[in-house]
């Protein structure tokens, strides 16, 4: 029987981050000017909030970067990583063949691949999807593979003694056991996807997109409120994506030790 979440504890749980948030905002708003931080290096939160609605193109830029670049790349990279992890779990030669390359390819900074991808796929969204796919592939591969092989040998023997087939063992044992690791990978990938799409746009874009906007405003002197507005929007998108993954994790891995009481 699953536990019903009591509304009051949920509100209590939400309280600490809200308190910290308010504290940070107050310090930021009222203490940075007296501390001598100039306007051109860090605008106040109220200035940023006032600036966001005045930038008309921000909605389109954010939607383009998040939905057309980061999301497809995130889905593609995570799905490919997971599929290769499954292949590596069942076919030993695949594991032995590709895991060493997970190291090598993962060590290539995306920044190095961005000019290559743009030279090859053009400056529109396709090149950014390619970059995001590459950088999200390996965290998922490493995490999912670790999860899929984390199964207790005793559990495997139990499944065998029940005469469970390969697929039954996979769906009833290996897949559920891998989920906490898989969600670990997905959480890392949400932020990597946004960073990859934004940095990719620094090297080439069709003159719109969140990364292009940040890069452009960063080069203009005195445009820090615009720069920080765009950074704030990028931040909000990243947090929203992360929260979606956390909610999915709660729904699917409620049985895991780290969510049980009595820790």
């Amino acid at each position, binding site marked *: 029987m699953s536990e019903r979440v009591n509304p009051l504890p949920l509100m209590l749980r939400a309280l*600490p*981050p809200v308190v*910290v948030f308010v504290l940070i905002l107050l310090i930021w708003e009222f203490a940075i000017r007296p501390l001598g931080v100039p306007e051109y*290096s*860090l605008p106040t939160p109220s200035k940023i909030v006032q600036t966001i609605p005045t930038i008309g193109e921000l909605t389109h830029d954010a939607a383009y970067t998040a939905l057309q670049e980061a999301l497809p790349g995130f889905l593609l990279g995570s799905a490919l990583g997971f599929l290769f992890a499954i292949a590596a779990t069942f076919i030993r*030669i*695949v*594991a*032995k*063949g*590709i895991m*060493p*390359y997970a*190291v*090598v*390819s*993962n*060590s*290539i*900074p*995306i*920044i*190095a*691949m961005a*000019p*290559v991808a743009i*030279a*090859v796929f053009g400056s529109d969204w396709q090149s950014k999807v390619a970059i995001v796919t590459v950088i999200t592939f390996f*965290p998922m591969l*490493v*995490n999912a593979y*670790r999860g899929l092989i984390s199964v207790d040998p005793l559990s495997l023997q139990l499944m065998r003694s029940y005469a469970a087939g390969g697929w039954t063992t996979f769906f009833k044992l290996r897949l559920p056991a891998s989920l*906490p690791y898989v969600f*670990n990978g997905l*959480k*890392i990938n949400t*932020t990597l996807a*946004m*960073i990859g799409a*934004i*940095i990719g746009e*620094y*090297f080439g874009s069709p003159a719109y997109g969140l*990364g292009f906007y*940040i*890069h452009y405003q*960063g080069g203009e002197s005195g445009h820090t409120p615009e*720069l920080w507005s*765009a*950074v704030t929007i*990028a*931040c909000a*998108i*990243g*947090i929203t994506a*992360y929260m979606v993954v956390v909610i999915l994790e709660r729904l699917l891995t409620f049985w895991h*030790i*780290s969510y049980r009481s*009595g*820790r």
Partner: protein
Amino acid sequence: MAELAPSDGYPAAGSGDSVLATLEQAATPPLVRRWLDNLVPVLIVLVILIAVWYASSAYFNLQNLDSLVVPPPGWQKLSLLEKIHRSLTTDQPLVPTPNQTFSDFFNDLKQSPTADGTLWSDIFWTGQVAVLGFLLGSVIGIALALLFLSSRILAQALMPYVVASQTVPIIALVPPLIVTIGLGIRSEILVSAYLAFFSITISTYKGLQSVEPLAFDLMRSYAASRRQIFTKLRLPASLPFMFTGLKIGVTASLIGAVVAELSSGSSHGLGQRLVTTTTDGLYIPLWSTIVATACVGLILYGALVALEKALVRQRVEATA
């Protein structure tokens, strides 16, 4: 049983004990064969990767040469095979071939390691920033995880901000960082550490919480102190998770070191070399810089794998 024992090179099966010994010997292949077992799959994938690399060099360079406003003299009259040959040997390729890339890479490595402006000096500079950034990021990452473990309220209050701080695009944060701490290696190390700590915090925190409740009951029934529960149960249980985070973190710290060089106006480092080769359209040196960056990552990652092997084996021996 007799037909199970290999006929040559092994003692004949006699008593029950020696049959077991023989079977054990047969089950563990000689060292050379085990090496081959591990090496052959890697080589197969390597051959596939090199084939894909050559194919994409041919494909993209061919497209590139075809789309030139002023094609090479006599280009239209060449047969497809000759065009492919030209695509693989052009000295201004869009995608250099593996042999072009690696001959350039090894030529660069032949230069004096101490001279300024060589590939070696850039490797040492970026490697140093990445190692220092990783160490700082690990200390911060593990400390945060321990802090979150010790106080649930702190975890609930700060965890969203650990995440939020990482969704800020790193390059946007480099200019303010440089304004406050000044140009140079310190801001590069900070950016590197900043990129590394996130996965370490999340993985370590998750690992520290992944202890079986039964194991806690057992420790409590032994009247173990809080300190003993931590060092003998929680910490060892968290190590596999922690190392997953550390391995992602070490790569992230290298990425951070490279990214920081893009905006910090540094005159050293692999990141700077990527910028100059890209803006000059010199794709062969660009690719050999990518190879050098990958080598640095491989060395750092290899050191962590060795550490993980040492620590996790120790744990298994302790529980055995």
